[in-house]
């Protein structure tokens, strides 16, 4: 490796490796408990997907340049230069990781491998080896934000179409998607697709919420890519818009990483306090149901219904009960997956991996624990509040012939509301298109 590039990489490591991360790589006892916790290692048996091994690569580079023993006797202390072989392995083990942090949950020392891999992503990006697709998605989002006026016409037209659909569902000619409404209490930061806006709009309108959306979306591929500056810029778009509109609360959609970015990461990236209350849409919906602001019919969703905890919302976001309470409110036949909540298996579709074609084989193999859970539950309907999880489980559904209907939670809620246009039952929905309802 050329001296200049090596200095760049060691500079990245020096900047990123804080005290906590140094402690993580020092205290790993290689007990390998993490091997049984990682869906990818369990599903593939491939050593490079063992969580401790993923972190070990960073440890080897760190030892080579920042540890006296490793610097002078590298062979004895397993210190390695970041040569092409190491960087190739680092790429596979890092970008394949879904960041579910189940390994951390079971680690006796709570080593946060996903955090260590954020250093790996920074190294790979500095070496010009960041994942191209995730980089493109991040750049496209930034371009869209920089040139919002260019896309305003098509987006407003799309919102008008969704407003018509909302009115068809609620039967109320006054209902609509509110766009850039100054003085709204709530800014709903949706995903780009209509499926993320339509059911939320129905629920907000029926609840009488003072809400709005803007031109900016919640998905953040800068986060998956591993570039915190790109991630900050993408997030800042809707934070600035929330300030301009004067809202009191930001509500993020059924998207695992979007919740975690807004609730936990933005402050660290921006070095400014989050100026708004951040809520997940399911916290709002749970409150609307419990307070009587919206009505749902508990008998309307037929079939045995189960719920998948998306890792970023559940284990890493602490939202376990509100989604379950909502699902239990719309069905009398709920069954939980085993294990569940903090011990829930990752479906294998997080971290942006569904967009990276080169990991498709690993991704599908790593879903085997989720397939086993779903089969054991006997459920015919799955409620799942994360876009990446739904994409992965829909594919597992097809590959393994599970016969599941897979729905956003808010789609199930709308289907259970006593509205003129919400008559669709789960049975009537085409297989695999629950999220399109």
């Amino acid at each position, binding site marked *: 490796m050329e001296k200049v590039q090596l200095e760049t990489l060691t500079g990245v490591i020096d900047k990123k490796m804080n005290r906590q991360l140094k402690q993580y790589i020092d205290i790993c006892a290689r007990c390998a408990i993490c091997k049984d916790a990682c869906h990818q290692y369990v599903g593939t048996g491939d050593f490079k997907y063992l969580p401790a091994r993923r972190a070990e690569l960073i440890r080897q580079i760190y030892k080579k340049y920042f540890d006296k023993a490793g610097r002078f006797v590298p062979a004895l202390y397993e210190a390695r230069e970041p040569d092409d072989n190491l960087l190739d392995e680092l790429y596979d083990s890092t970008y394949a990781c879904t960041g579910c942090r189940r390994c951390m949950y079971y680690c006796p020392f709570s080593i946060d491998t996903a955090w260590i891999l954020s250093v790996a992503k920074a190294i790979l990006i500095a070496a010009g080896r960041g994942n191209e697709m995730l980089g493109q*998605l991040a750049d*496209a989002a930034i371009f869209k934000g920089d040139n919002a006026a260019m896309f305003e016409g098509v*987006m407003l037209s799309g919102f008008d179409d969704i407003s018509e659909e909302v009115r068809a569902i609620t039967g109320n000619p006054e209902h609509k998607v509110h766009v850039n409404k100054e003085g709204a209490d709530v800014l709903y930061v949706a995903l780009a697709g*209509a499926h993320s806006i339509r059911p939320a709009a129905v629920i907000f309108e029926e609840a009488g919420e003072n809400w709005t959306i803007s031109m900016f979306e919640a*998905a953040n591929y800068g986060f998956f890519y591993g570039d915190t500056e790109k991630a900050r810029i993408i997030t800042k778009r809707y934070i600035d818009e929330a300030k301009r509109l004067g809202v009191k609360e930001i509500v993020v959609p059924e998207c695992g990483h979007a919740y975690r970015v807004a609730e936990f990461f933005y402050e660290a990236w921006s070095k400014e306090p989050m100026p708004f209350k951040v809520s997940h849409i399911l916290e709002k919906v749970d409150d609307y149901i419990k307070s009587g602001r919206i009505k749902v019919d508990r008998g309307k969703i037929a079939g045995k219904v189960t719920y998948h905890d998306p890792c970023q919302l559940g284990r890493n976001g602490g939202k376990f009960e509100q989604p379950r309470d909502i699902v239990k409110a719309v069905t009398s036949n709920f069954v939980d997956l085993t294990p569940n909540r903090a011990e829930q298996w990752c479906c294998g579709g997080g971290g942006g991996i569904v967009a990276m074609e080169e990991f498709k084989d690993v991704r599908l193999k790593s879903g085997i624990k989720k397939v086993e859970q779903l089969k054991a539950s006997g459920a015919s309907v799955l409620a799942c509040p994360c876009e990446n999880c739904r994409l992965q489980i829909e594919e597992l559904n097809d590959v393994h012939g599970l016969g599941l209907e897979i729905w956003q939670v808010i789609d199930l809620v709308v289907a259970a509301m006593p509205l003129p246009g919400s008559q669709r039952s789960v049975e009537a929905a085409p297989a695999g298109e629950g999220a399109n309802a």
Partner: protein
Amino acid sequence: MSDETKIDLELDLKGLLCPLPMVKVSQNINNVPVGGVIRAVATDPGAMADIPAWAQSTGNEVLSADKEGSEFVFLVKRVK
């Protein structure tokens, strides 16, 4: 324009939710030669912003983006 343009690859992206239509176009752009054209048909309205934004940020070109009924039809030219 679609009547005159030679299509090198057809992509059926109907039913895919954003950002997957953009992802699929990106994954397939190298499957056409430089100067070649992908015709992509999506149903998610978010693609109307996503695919042009992707093209602009990657240096490719959207020749046309049209709404045809409930479908969104894109002609995307590989520039480099």
